[in-house]
């Protein structure tokens, strides 16, 4: 692993939900840790929580993207602007990224996350009765599982897309 890889793997970004009651920290690409203001978990509802967590996901994605681009820039590289992509393969890759719909869920299914349009659009669902059933610490663990799961699904689909775009002959042969 090179220096840039180490930096990206260790990247840590923090955001606060719009209502100020939830903070979220993402370490690397997969590790999410939520924290609630004292008393908030006991008085919120599933519908409010999923609304706030949807915003948290979007903010985390923006924060991490900024940090990644800064790290790449510091290493002497740059991010290719989708609008300036000329080669057919590059355009197909960006179109493919936009079309990816990733899905993740906690092991018990109580928290589900969808990411679309290259992770620009998010939706978090918290199943009814979750807040009554799970303690705050349990919910934090479920949310982390769902976040890990959606990121892995996205990455899996991006890897398949890479092959579809750059080595279509593999798919033509029935892979």
């Amino acid at each position: 692993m090179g220096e840039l890889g180490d930096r990206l793997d260790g990247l840590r970004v923090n955001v606060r939900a719009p209502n100020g009651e939830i903070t979220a920290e993402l370490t690397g690409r997969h590790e999410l840790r939520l924290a609630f203001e004292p008393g908030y978990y006991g008085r919120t509802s599933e519908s409010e929580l999923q609304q706030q967590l949807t915003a948290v996901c979007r903010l985390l994605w923006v924060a991490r993207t900024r940090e990644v681009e800064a790290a790449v820039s510091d290493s002497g590289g740059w991010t290719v602007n989708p609008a300036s992509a000329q080669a057919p393969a590059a355009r197909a890759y960006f179109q493919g990224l936009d079309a990816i719909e990733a899905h993740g869920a906690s092991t018990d299914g109580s928290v589900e996350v969808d990411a679309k349009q290259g992770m620009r659009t998010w939706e978090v669902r918290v199943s009814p009765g979750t807040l009554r059933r799970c303690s705050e610490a349990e919910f934090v663990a479920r949310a982390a599982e769902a976040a890990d799961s959606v990121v892995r699904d996205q990455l899996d689909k991006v890897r398949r897309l890479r092959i579809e775009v750059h080595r279509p002959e593999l798919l033509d042969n029935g892979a």
Partner: protein
Amino acid sequence: MSFEQLMQHAADIGNKAFKEGLEELMALKSPSYLAQEQPKLLNRCYAEVPGLFQPFSQIPDPASYDPAIETLKRALAKLSTGQDTRDPISTNGGSYYANPVLDKISGSEAYIESWTGKAAMEFKTNFIDPFPSVARNQFILISALKAALEAEQAMWAAARKDIDQIAENTLKALDCMDDCTSKEWAVTFTAAAAITGILLTIPTLGGSAALAISISTVGAAAWVAAALPPSPPELTISGDETNAVLDSMHTAVNKASEVISETEQRIAKALNNVLDAVHGNRDYFVAPRPALVGAVRQTIMNPEYMGYSD
């Protein structure tokens, strides 16, 4: 990163590319295809990648040219006549104090001018009179050789940086593959431009006698003015897929080889021109062997040698 770790970087690239490439194949969820493609990926990452970098790990240490360059500097100091004590070619060159020993040759004219022998007169015409020009031309010749060594030295120093940059940027591109949007890193091939300030100043020395004669009076400025630096070629290391990243690395390594090869040819061409000039105008670089060398004690006073002095 540094050049000394080049093969370690090549191994890191192979490991990282294999991990990424394997995950791409696994995303296809086809065991048969994985079985078919994995050996190709293994070969590419663990044979092709180190094989590409291996020749570059053997390129000469620029510091190994220092002793030869120092030797030529000492030769320049011996050949400096005082007409112009600056190194006429190398942009790295300094000034060399005029060597007073050389003045003794011209000074010997007074000893020989009253002698009547044929060889004595020819010694003045063929040896003493052109001596300053011959010494000056040798001074230029040695400075050309020194410039060629300095050009080689600069080329290899730049080539080391170039190949290191390719390895480093390939690793960065592989490190970033899981961060979806495409990234690029530029690689600049500096090996050709590195010698520009040095090598293009080597004169072609010219085939015509008129040009060869003027060799001792042409200053450094004329040659330096001819040295227009070419803009260094540039490529990018990029790719959204493991093989695409390795392809861009392969193209860059090939370009680095090509630039080194072209640069070597430029140095060789310049040296061949110098060699042709020396062969074509030998008298300008080497004084003719004085006939007096053939004299012995019994014959030195003969008319074909020293003759008689008043």
